[in-house]
């Protein structure tokens, strides 16, 4: 019942928005819907913790939520709520300035619930096939959001997004089917084997090893493209920078992690089947690669949102590498990092949105600097969030990163730790340089002082506040949840 409602709510909201006329209703439906989703997600976490470790299922195992899925659902809820709150003032202003038409306005409010729905389905679906379909749905609903502004650049971004993404999805589908094929005949049943992840995991050792490896390769490249692992990340900065800020927040806040989630399901399966370190090392390699690649691009970046996108790339890399190291604490740290990053990144994109609406550009040189003077509130929040994503205390990302690296040291991944630290430092230098140039300075020549609406401040300070809260104090229940999740990932539930 719980799962059903989580799943159906966004869908219902989307359909409702399809037919609702007044704008206020659209906005309200979205915000309220996301709020309820968040609440339900919390409920789900409770439920999962309640039947300690065992998964919550519905529709005869069609929907299945274990600790990992519950955690992801929570992230989806948080980010989508934040971005739906932020969307209200954002699009009102765009509409007022005639930057978006009425049609596009509605398009956004119809599509983003579907976006959310897709992501929820990904994490709740038990059948790998359904999961793939859901990922595809996420992709399709977000493409039009990326293209919303219908500028040359946004169309280009959308095209690259859809082509590369579609390609990745086809590869992922191939991998999925191969996985299924690996199950054939090994199960010894005459009837059709179940496509459910839980069943497959149960009989993982009997699966065909060669086929499983082949499958994982395709899935890695496929879902890796969606997750933006280097060198399949090339669509990511384009899409993230061209989408309207609320969507960018969703894309980099959760949808990347959703792809990682999908990848993880196969990773778990493959590890259980092969029992070798192959998949782990692949994850580790791609993760480190992404971290290292992000640095140079940030150092010489010209565009604020693109820079943020590259920093997402770096964080995704960190998460993958951490999971690849596969020590209890690294995986725990990775999940923690997912959470903190999902809280911090949207704020940055929202701030970028404010700046874009104020200056009508994201080019550092055109903006010039001095935001601390021209738009103090945004500047403050941007600064705090930047501190957070660059992994400095008092924000939790410091804790999660250090957890990962130190646990890696104990697991004798010394060089990995060193590379990670180096990459982090490089990225930090880039971020600091750019953000300092943006915020500080005289700030003359900029437009008039910003008009801060309550919605914007709320949408930005809410995640930030939560981040601070959870950095200072991590509830035991959440920790338990994450520990269970990391247990699942490491195949030792």
């Amino acid at each position, binding site marked *: 019942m719980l799962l059903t409602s989580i799943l159906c709510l966004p869908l219902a909201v989307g359909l409702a928005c399809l037919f609702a006329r007044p704008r206020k209703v659209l906005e309200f439906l979205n915000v309220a819907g996301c709020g309820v989703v968040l609440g339900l997600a919390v409920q789900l976490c409770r439920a999962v913790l309640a039947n300690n470790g065992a998964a919550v299922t519905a529709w005869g195992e069609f929907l299945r939520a274990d600790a990992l899925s519950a955690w992801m659902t929570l992230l989806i809820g948080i980010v989508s709520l934040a971005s739906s709150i932020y969307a209200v003032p954002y699009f009102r202003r765009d509409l007022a300035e005639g930057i978006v038409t009425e049609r596009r306005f509605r398009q956004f409010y119809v599509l983003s619930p579907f976006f959310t729905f897709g992501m929820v389905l990904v994490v709740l679906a038990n*059948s790998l*096939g*359904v999961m*793939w*379909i859901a990922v*595809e*749905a996420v992709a*399709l609903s977000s*493409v*039009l959001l990326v*293209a919303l502004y*219908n500028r*040359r*650049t946004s*169309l*280009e*971004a*959308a*095209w*690259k997004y*859809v*082509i590369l993404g*579609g*390609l990745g999805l*086809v*590869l992922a*589908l*191939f991998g999925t*089917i*191969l996985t*299924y*094929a690996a199950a*054939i*005949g090994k199960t*010894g049943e*005459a009837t*059709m084997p179940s*496509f459910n992840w839980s069943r497959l995991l149960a009989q993982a050792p009997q699966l*065909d090893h*060669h*086929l499983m490896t*082949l499958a994982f390769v395709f899935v890695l490249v496929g879902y890796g493209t969606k997750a933006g692992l280097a060198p399949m990340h090339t669509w990511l*900065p*384009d899409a993230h*920078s*061209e989408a309207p800020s609320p969507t960018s927040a969703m894309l980099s806040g959760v949808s990347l992690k959703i792809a990682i989630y999908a990848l993880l399901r196969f990773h778990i399966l493959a590890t259980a089947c092969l029992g070798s370190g192959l998949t782990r090392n692949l994850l580790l390699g791609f993760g480190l690669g992404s971290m290292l690649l992000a640095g140079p*691009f940030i150092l*010489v*970046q*010209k*565009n604020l949102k*693109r820079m943020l996108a590259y920093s997402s790339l770096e964080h995704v890399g960190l998460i993958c590498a951490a999971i690849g190291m596969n020590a209890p604490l690294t995986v725990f740290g990775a999940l923690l990092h997912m959470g903190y990053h999902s809280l911090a990144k949207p704020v940055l994109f929202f701030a970028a949105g404010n700046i874009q609406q104020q200056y009508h550009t994201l080019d550092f040189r055109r903006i010039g600097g001095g935001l601390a003077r021209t738009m103090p509130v945004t500047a403050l929040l941007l600064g705090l969030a930047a501190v957070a994503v660059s992994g400095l205390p008092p924000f939790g990302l410091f804790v999660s990163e250090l957890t990962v690296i130190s646990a890696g040291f104990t697991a004798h991944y010394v060089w990995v730790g060193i590379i990670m630290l180096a990459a982090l430092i490089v990225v930090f230098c880039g971020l600091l340089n750019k953000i300092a140039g943006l915020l500080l300075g005289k700030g003359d020549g900029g437009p008039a002082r910003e008009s801060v609406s309550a919605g914007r401040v709320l949408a930005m300070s809410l995640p930030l506040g939560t981040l601070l809260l959870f950095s200072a104090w991590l509830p035991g229940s959440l920790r338990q949840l994450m520990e269970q999740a990391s247990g699942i990932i490491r195949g030792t539930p």
Partner: protein
Amino acid sequence: MIPSVIPTASNLITLLASAMLVLQLLLAVQSMLITNIRLFALQSLLLAAIAGVVGYAYGAWHVLVLAVLTVLGKVIFLPWRLQQLVRQIKIEQEIRPFVNMSASMLICGALTVLAHVVARPITSLERLGSNTLAVAIALVLTGFFLMINRRKAVTQVLAILTMENGVMLAAIALTTYGMPLVVEIGILFDVVVAVMVLGILVFRIRETFSSMDVSKLNELKW
């Protein structure tokens, strides 16, 4: 227990599969857009045929359903939509690939070989037809290559679709009864929607850039 393999059916499947591969290679060298679309339609038809054979030979009714859906979706609807698109935005027929015909032929050959190499250790578990996995991989890889090698938006869409054909071939020929119906239908539905979305985008790109050459889309860099 695994259903006993019916030789004729398996031969038939092998034959059809290799025919798909041949069509793929033709696609690689074929330079007329409309013809490309038709070749794709033909390839999808072969896929449907394979599905039919499987469904008939092993009495798996939902595979038949899949066959029918494939015919409706990929043989009739998508080619029609694509042709309509081509007509709407009146792009010239000539495809100018990056790599010339002979070279791309060679590359596709190499990819096919690679596919066989990759698939060899696994051929043992192919129940319906032989080399189907190899063919599927080959289709995916060559389709991929087509994507890289084509300038026009529409042709890239086409390439993706051929890859998808390869995937479906694997889905049918490797898994005895095909996959759960929900999944099958879902996949097909998604593909169709994807093409619709792509259509919208192609249209918009066409009217904003007044060109179909996606290699001209390079304002976003770094």
